[in-house]
């Protein structure tokens, strides 16, 4: 019995965004990463070609983090003491991108200075040829203080600056505009808030092909269902032609999953939680794969084994099945 497969015809598509710049393009990266360009829902190969695969960024910190799970600190070992070495190790672990996230304070409890932030970013750029995302510690004012000088010192690199949110988008967008960088626009899990911020950002004159949107997610067990559905809705809106949702999506399953007790803690937990390391990696991987299938273009991860599994899964998802 011949079955007629219903195909969705979408009027809209996601914009293509390129991160990083090579020497010819005014930067120093050995390669660039392009995301977006989808014309269908994730991996519906029978409707249209998926031009760019989702990619994996590995999150590194400017110094050894105090609050990370011991599993992560063990697996990265000494490189976690040195962002440049860490970036190199992350590249070797299969990262497509490096996300450098600043701490609020140094090991002695003193605030991170703009000068040291610039030095760190320079060292990381030196150590890896991968394109970079540079994120402040997540407090709008501190983010501004660190990101502006970083943006100026790295003009032309097409770095992604974050977090760019309603409280500080003016400063971050201005820094991106003046220095040929990109921004990652974060809103708390709401389609309309995401659109609104994207409007504000593009109204400032930042070309839309320099904007990523981070709709925020929760980890498995801690609100993933909200993030998942907001992402599905955003992607549907983009395909339906809503211009202010047509940006590639970036999410941080690594950050979220490793905050959960399931990943952080190995002792004094129920036996039914099983082996700690296995559970923690599953926590991160299952959060990530679920979001990739909801439309994530960039997932930021922490554990090298999760990176390996997710990269393999992406390759499999990108393989066009025979019947398509």
């Amino acid at each position, binding site marked *: *019995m*011949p*079955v007629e*497969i*219903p195909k969705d015809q979408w009027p809209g598509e996601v914009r293509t965004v390129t991160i990083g710049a090579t020497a010819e393009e005014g930067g120093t990266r050995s390669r660039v990463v392009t995301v977006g360009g989808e014309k269908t*829902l*994730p*991996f*519906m*190969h*029978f409707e249209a070609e998926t031009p760019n695969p989702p990619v994996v960024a590995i999150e590194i910190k400017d110094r050894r983090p105090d609050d990370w799970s011991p599993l992560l600190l063990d697996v990265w070992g000494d490189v976690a003491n040195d962002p440049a070495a860490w970036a190199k190790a992350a590249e070797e672990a299969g990262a497509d991108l490096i996300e450098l996230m600043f701490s609020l304070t140094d090991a002695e409890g003193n605030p991170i200075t703009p000068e040291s932030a610039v030095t760190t970013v320079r060292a990381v750029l030196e150590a890896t040829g991968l394109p970079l995302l540079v994120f402040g510690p997540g407090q709008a004012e501190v983010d501004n203080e660190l990101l502006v000088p970083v943006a100026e010192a790295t003009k032309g690199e097409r770095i992604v600056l974050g977090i760019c949110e309603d409280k500080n988008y003016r400063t971050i967008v201005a820094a991106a505009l003046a220095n040929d960088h990109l921004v990652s626009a974060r809103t*708390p899990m709401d389609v309309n808030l995401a659109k609104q911020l994207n409007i504000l950002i593009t109204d400032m004159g930042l070309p839309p092909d320099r904007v990523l949107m981070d709709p925020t997610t929760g980890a*498995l*067990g*801690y*609100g*993933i*269902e909200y993030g*998942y*559905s907001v992402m*599905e*809705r955003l992607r*549907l809106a983009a395909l339906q032609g809503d211009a202010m949702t047509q940006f590639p999506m970036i999410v941080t399953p690594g950050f979220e999953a490793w*905050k959960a*007790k*399931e990943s*952080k*803690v190995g002792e*004094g937990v*129920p*036996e*039914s*939680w*099983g*082996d*700690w390391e*296995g*559970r923690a990696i*599953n*926590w991160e*991987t*299952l959060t990530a*794969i*679920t979001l990739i*299938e*909801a439309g994530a273009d960039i997932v930021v991860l922490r554990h090298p084994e999760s990176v390996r*599994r997710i990269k*393999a*899964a992406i390759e*499999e*998802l*990108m*393989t*066009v*099945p*025979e*019947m*398509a």
Partner: protein
Amino acid sequence: MALSGIQIYKLLPQTNCKDCGFPTCLAFAMKLAAKQVELSACPHVSEESKALLAESAAPPIRLVTLKSDGYEVKAGNEVVLFRHEKTFYHRPGLFIRVRDTEPADEIKKKASAVDAYSVTYVGIDLTLDGFAVEATSGDPTTFAAAVGAIREVSERPLILISRDPAVMAAGLQAVNGEKPLVYGADSDNWEAMADLAGQHEVPLAVIGKTLDELAELTEKIKEKGVEDMVLDPAARDLSGSLVLNTQIRRLALKKNFRPLGYPLIAFPGDAGDPAREAILAAQAIAKYAGFIVLDTFAPELAYPLLVLRQNIYTDPQKPIQVQPGLYEINEPTPESPLLVTTNFSITYFSVANEVEGSGLPAWLLVADAEGMSVLTAWAAGKFDAERIAKAVKNFGVAEKLSNKRIVIPGHVAVLSGELEEELPGWEIRVGPREAVDLPSYMKEAL
């Protein structure tokens, strides 16, 4: 998909006789389409129209139930492609596969562990659903023995796997009176399998290498009187299964295409590698499987999969909440500390589990924050000084405590000033940000 009023009208006598209580057949048809009247109110519909109308009222994806003594696993009856459009209803059953070539005591050991497995998430006990028994031996007696071995230790529902009707018959004999899923019928054996499923009145899984083949098989099997079917579109990779499951779901929901209007079965266990199996299973949960067969039974995999299933199948309109009130943890006395949190289930249980696990007694005041997490509620103005003070008063907290001291979550430290004003005479303490750090905080600072 249900018929429109006009489509229904065409099936009515069109005499406008008013016996149904409506002025015209069209008016009656409109009410029928809106499901506000029963078809039986019109005494004049032809048998033929009745059958067509009943068919159109049937759910686009058939509800299939596996049953055993004391257990049921249902799949189907789904109505949307995306959970935000309404909700997903029937959580896919998670089955652990055993092979009949494994020694009986191994099978029993594994099956008892699976049967006993239970993990608590936001106060809900989550368990696996049953077993898939595969006749790797190809021998009826061996197969029946393996099924029997499971039944010695567990009553949970079964999926019986063999393409050989003689072997399947032996398996079905071993669980007479139950409703296991028979897996399965393909283009070679479908007649014999349909006969077996018909005789035993059990659901039948149908395997097809293409959707054309699948649709043809289900139609032929239906003609033999078997209505409860489950589809295996036979892809075993992430890309193929995502595409096929989506196509089948769309055909059923958007085109009301009956030949594929059945729940789906997935075999992540076929991956042969637990890491890949986990990812395939996660996809199956979010993307439309009704029954999922795993080879790996490991708590570190079962737990995240059960939680993912719970999350994806949560009704987006109703966050899971707990009742606001004053909760006692580890038998507190008037001297024990008072902690305050919100009534979002995930939040409440993160805190309650930590305190309970620490063995330290405490009072946990759960304010009515309309089911939101601490920061969400704070941002939405549902967890502010006024609401906390109201909870303190409403639940008679002061009468139960000897000292007036309250610990607020570290994430809402900004509330302490206002709360001092709302609760004169109380000492406001700012606790840690994450619940994990509560036990050490309670030991050291309280």
